[in-house]
């Protein structure tokens, strides 16, 4: 049987959600730099406010430029829709507070970005939301951590910074067995390397600051809903009253009745973005859209360069360990082949055979790599996690997350890989002295 023609990833990267501007013919998505949008008449205004008509009211809630980005990322992820936010952290927060309130509990991988760990371990408990961190590779640990008030599983496609590959099919299977959704931070992989919804995840968010925008010039986030989770069925029944019971804040709307597939997004937009207000600016959305246009090209080159650099470091005598899942010695090598056939991204860590001082010397000797707190730039980056991104974690938590005093994290950019290797070689030689 012939399959119907559908648009492929590269085409969607350029076109999904957009069309030439009907008013001016502008081919690029215009930046609708307007806080608000004129109502044709009072009935139309009331209908927009009551979700009886489609359209934009106020740019905190939605904006035409931002909506193009939301639709594009939803298309690339294979979801039903998305909400763009002020940052990746805002996207994660929006996902959590849309589903959970005081007295709720999260089970999360312990291999997380330091900022995510902060939010879960230090900040959310102040609002009555607790998290148990587990070894992401142990399905028994995930199961054992579940409490009667658990409402969410959370992990990263590739754990930060050790690149633990989350076994999404297994973790999602357990989550669904228990009536829980699985939220995934897909920042390191982008939909070009993996679409978590294809493996059973229910919600995905990105720090669009990283590979989606790709040039280190913008801070933003995107939260995507797969539309698959049954909030009011089976073992989930009764667990998610924010979606299945009348909401006084919106005319007693029951979101799961309003939309079979997008109840989560409705509540997130009608409450979370409206009330917490961590929305994305239209100019930011434009910049992220520009980045996504070349996402397939950039990701292919990021991965190609990373493989070259990983091979160089793995063979270098002053390097004790390189944590990249494509290497046969990585504990998730086999799983990575299944879940990440296109590659394991462009961020990885390695350990020097040396002291912390030698590590510092190495970083300071680099010329092309920029020493800063970011990943996913077109330019190559380097950082020392134990003293920067993960410095708030206890020594015990650092060890559990696979971080040592000598761990160095690289984000490989789009430069000529020979130049990157030369820069690394020079810095290693300098540190070895």
């Amino acid at each position, binding site marked *: 049987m012939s399959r119907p023609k559908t648009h492929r990833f590269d085409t969607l990267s350029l076109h999904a959600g957009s*069309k030439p501007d009907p008013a001016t013919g502008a081919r690029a998505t215009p930046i609708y730099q307007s806080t608000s949008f004129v109502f044709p008449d009072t009935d139309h205004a009331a209908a927009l406010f*009551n979700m*009886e*008509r*489609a*359209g934009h009211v106020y740019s905190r809630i939605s904006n035409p430029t*931002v909506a193009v980005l939301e639709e594009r990322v939803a298309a690339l992820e294979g979801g*039903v829709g998305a909400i763009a936010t002020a940052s990746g952290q805002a996207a994660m927060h929006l996902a959590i507070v849309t589903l959970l309130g005081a007295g709720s509990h999260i089970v999360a991988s312990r291999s997380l970005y330091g900022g995510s760990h902060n939010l879960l371990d230090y900040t959310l408990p102040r609002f009555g939301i607790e998290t148990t961190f587990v070894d992401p590779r142990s399905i028994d640990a995930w199961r054992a951590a579940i409490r009667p008030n658990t409402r969410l599983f959370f992990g990263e496609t590739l754990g930060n910074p050790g690149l633990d590959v989350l076994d999404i099919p297994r973790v999602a299977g357990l989550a669904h067995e228990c009536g829980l959704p699985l939220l995934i931070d897909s920042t390191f992989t982008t939909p070009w390397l993996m679409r978590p919804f294809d493996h059973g995840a229910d919600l995905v968010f990105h720090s669009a600051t990283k590979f989606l925008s790709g040039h280190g010039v913008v801070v933003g986030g995107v939260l995507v809903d797969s*539309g698959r989770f049954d909030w009011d069925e089976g073992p989930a029944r009764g667990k998610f009253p924010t979606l299945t019971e009348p909401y006084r804040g919106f005319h007693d709307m029951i979101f799961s009745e309003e939309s*079979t597939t997008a109840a989560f997004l409705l509540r997130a937009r009608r409450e979370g973005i409206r009330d917490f207000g961590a929305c994305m600016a239209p100019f930011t959305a434009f910049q992220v859209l520009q980045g996504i246009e070349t996402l397939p090209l950039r990701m292919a080159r990021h991965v190609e360069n990373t493989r070259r650099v990983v091979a160089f470091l793995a063979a270098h005598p002053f390097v004790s360990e390189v944590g990249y899942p494509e290497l046969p010695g990585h504990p998730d090598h086999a799983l990575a082949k299944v879940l990440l056939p296109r590659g394991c991204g462009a961020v990885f860590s390695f350990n020097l055979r040396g002291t912390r001082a030698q590590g510092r010397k190495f970083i300071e000797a680099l010329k092309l790599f920029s020493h800063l707190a970011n990943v996913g730039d077109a330019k190559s980056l380097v950082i020392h996690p134990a003293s920067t991104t993960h410095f708030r974690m206890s020594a015990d938590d650092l060890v559990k997350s696979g971080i040592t005093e000598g761990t160095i994290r690289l984000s490989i950019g789009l430069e000529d890989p020979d130049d990157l290797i030369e820069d690394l070689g020079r810095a290693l030689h300098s540190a070895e002295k």
Partner: protein
Amino acid sequence: MRIAVDGSDCYAYTGSRALDAQKPAIVFVHGAANDHSVWALQSRYFAHHGYNVLAMDLPGHGHSGGAALATVEAIADWIPRVLDAAGIAKAAVVGHSMGSLATLACAARHPDRVTAIALLGPAVPMFVSDELLAAALDHDHVAYELINGWSFSAGKQLGGNAVPGMWLTGNAMRLMERTGPGVLHTDLLACRSYADGLADAVAVRCPVLAIMGERDLMTPVKGAQTMLAALADKRVVTLADTGHAMMAEQPDAVLDALRAFYRSGTSASQAFLFKPGRTLSG
């Protein structure tokens, strides 16, 4: 709202409003492998503008129990039983695709219960390819892909959703994927097997609104012309550059066509009376 129909627990979306005996009623009937949520914006509008709304999940679809009804006539005869269960004497009925056929048949078979009908994306007869039927029988995902490919106009295949942040085809796909094995095949077979469309059109006496998508590949405009010609009291609205999934592609245009129909003329207004003699505020 949950109501028991034929011993099965059925779901009707009411816009979070309790039914009011003083208001006229509109029943919305979805198409194959869909549910009430395809009418989200339109049904919510009417529920908040003077109407009792029953946007149904057909048996075996969405939140409704039971097995999918095997024929268009069975769906047509089910609608009055929904009205009985809800305590509603008469209602206007709005149907899309398969639902439009059931709506047409319902008006012909139960003229005392149906006061006006709106047919969105109808075709009589409704052609369903052997290829699509076979895929649906096998519960092959390609069936949903074929429907999505034919349901959205070419321009909308790349999105541009009127509802901010929603990916049109992704949402439609996910909704279809939620239907159980066999449901799509039952629905499609019901559409293809409906042979009395022309006779039913001749028999319909209430006002009819037909909304057609200019770019509809599932039920092309030409496929409804004979049926439309047979209707006695009709109004036809064709939406430019619109495909079969018209409630999603052009939600406001569909709503405006329905509103204009309800507000126009005596016969149309009477069609939406909950009780004879009562005027509408909609």
